[in-house]
């Protein structure tokens, strides 16, 4: 159980994770533009505090499900940058051996299911994880990441209700970034707050400032402890914002630049950086060192991915069946 106000070392760790995610996403974007990474990307810049804060409250043996926007969750949960990068490159050394790709990052060794790219898809599957932990009495917890758009899917309701009724050790983390692709939330819901849906199923919920990693971690710790203690599921609504488009071919014509600027003022990494400097938890040099270390890790990851072998098509048919 984490202490009330985190120690400097823990805060620095949160900073490092968010910075790793941010720089990974930037790096990957340029590699994509250069044609080195195929397919498309759904990126996480701006939302780093949610993945980081929630995963900081979890053990490696806890599991998470994720979405089509999984890079942040993956790195925060412990998928190595090498394995994630190689997967984006579609190489045999990727965390899913090149078979999954950007939208299916995952690694059973660190408790992340290959991300489910069907909106709401993870919301029912996570109940199965919770059911397994409950039946086996392992004390493990399952966390489901999803966006506010998913709360209109039947799967969200069925999953939440079933988890509640079965008192499963599941925490549902909604990243409300105000837009489902291009559609603003107020266009598809008469009720502004996602957390209101929790009460309909007898589940307690909380709104969290998703741009404040310390607040996220605090709320997550409480929710995870309650779930682990058999109190049933909790819904956290983390209010956040993605700084980039839905995918890389998104011109973001449905948002104003003013709105984007406003949210960029609340950049979670800048915010933590200021806090660390102000309360003396770290100095500029330490923060620069973190930055250098992260850059070096990413250089290594790109190198590793570039030099890794392609998967062999001859082995493909064997992968459909156990």
């Amino acid at each position, binding site marked *: 159980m984490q202490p009330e106000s985190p120690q400097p070392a823990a805060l620095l760790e949160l900073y490092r994770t968010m910075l790793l995610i941010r720089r990974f996403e930037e790096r990957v974007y*340029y590699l*994509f*533009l*250069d*044609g080195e990474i*195929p397919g*498309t990307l759904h990126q996480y810049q701006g939302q780093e505090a949610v993945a980081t804060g929630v995963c900081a409250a979890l053990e490696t043996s806890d599991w998470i499900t994720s979405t089509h926007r999984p890079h942040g969750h993956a790195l925060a949960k412990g998928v190595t940058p090498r394995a994630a990068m190689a997967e984006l490159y579609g190489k045999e050394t990727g965390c899913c051996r090149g078979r999954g790709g950007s939208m299916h990052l995952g690694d059973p060794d660190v408790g992340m299911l290959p991300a489910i790219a069907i909106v709401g898809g993870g919301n029912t599957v996570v109940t199965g994880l919770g059911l397994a932990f409950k039946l086996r009495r392992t004390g493990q917890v399952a966390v489901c990441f999803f966006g506010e758009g998913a709360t209109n899917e039947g799967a969200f309701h069925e999953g939440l209700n079933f988890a509640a009724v079965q008192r499963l050790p599941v925490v549902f983390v909604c990243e409300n970034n105000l837009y489902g692709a291009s559609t603003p939330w107020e266009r598809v819901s008469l009720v502004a707050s996602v957390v209101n849906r929790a009460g309909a199923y007898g589940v307690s919920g909380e709104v969290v400032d998703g741009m404040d990693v310390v607040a996220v971690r605090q709320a997550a710790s409480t929710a995870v402890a309650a779930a682990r203690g058999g109190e049933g599921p909790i819904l956290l609504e983390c209010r956040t914002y993605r700084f980039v488009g839905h995918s890389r*071919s998104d*011109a973001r014509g449905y948002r104003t630049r003013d709105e984007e600027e406003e949210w960029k003022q609340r950049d979670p990494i800048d915010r933590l950086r200021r806090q660390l400097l102000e309360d003396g938890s770290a100095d500029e040099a330490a923060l620069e060192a973190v930055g250098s270390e992260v850059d070096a890790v990413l250089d290594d990851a790109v190198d590793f991915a570039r030099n890794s072998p392609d998967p062999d098509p001859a082995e493909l048919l064997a992968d459909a069946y156990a």
Partner: protein
Amino acid sequence: MAHAVRMPPLGETTDELRILEWLKAEGDDIALGEPLLAVETDKATLEVEATAAGTLLGILRRAGESVRVGTVIAYVGDQREDAPEQTAAQEAAPKAAGGDVPPMPPSHRERVAASPAVRRLAQDMGVDLSEVRGSGPGGRVEKNDVMEMAGSPAADGDSVTPHRQALARRLGRSALIPQFNIGATVDMTQAAALLERERAADAPGLGYTHLLLRALAVALRACPEANRLWVDQGPRIRRLERTDVGLAVAGEETLLVVTIPEPDRLSSAELVEHTERATAEARAGRVSERHSAPAAVTLSNLGMVGVDRFAPIVDPDQTGILAAGAVAERPGVVGGEVRPVLQLELTLTVDHRVLDGHAAGRFLAEIRQQLETGDGV
């Protein structure tokens, strides 16, 4: 080295994007992530950020141009460098010319109504489907129609299999070869003892057939003039290098000759194995290449069906054939006295064009000697 700026894959459904406007000029300093140009995709207008810092060295494609994804459109690097030459490979491949394809003229060949199975049967039996009257619905040709056409109506006896027809043709050719036969009675006492020894040692499946194969191979080596084949073209007589020996194998309805490779060079166990394998292949109708090599002489053993002696017909592609009867005790003369002796009657038929009487006799004598005194390999 200068970093190539490529048209990025930002289109949802298109491979080609249009350059709307360059936001920087040649010679400008470029920061990492700075917007370089605006492009138009199928969905929207987007700004493309620089993926490397440096000086914008060479702009290769202009505003208004449509460019395929992946094509180099500019270079960013050290301002003292020259922009690399644009290579032809960077051009997008031209689209293939479209156009209407003229319709195919109708086929003039009339198709006979027959199922795939019937067609295959007709092909196998050498029957021309277009000449068969079909008795099936709508004049469809049925299996019986083909069989009748092939000339063996059920009422007049059994139909002849393709194999037997082929065999009949071969024997017809044999009948044209001038051949004669000579015989010898062989004392098999030593051979029987050898057989017992070898069976006990490491070749429990060894039999007289194997000893005969070996004897033939030894004899061929000793009498190379027997190891030759008549070739009509020329004509010529062709010498064989190896002492391969043929073996006649009878199946249920088939008779095939397989080749055992140089029996005189095989151990007893190997000889047994080869013979078994080759026999199995022959009976399955699928003889491997190894067991199909040309041979000058074949062994035909009818001892197991109680024949004492017989005069075989030489294979039209070979020079000799050795017939073996049953190994049995018969009255023989040993040291001036009549005794029961284990004997075998051999008959050798040869192609007179290749071997005269003396040569044939020498060859047979070699065979007999091997059997009467040979001690195995």
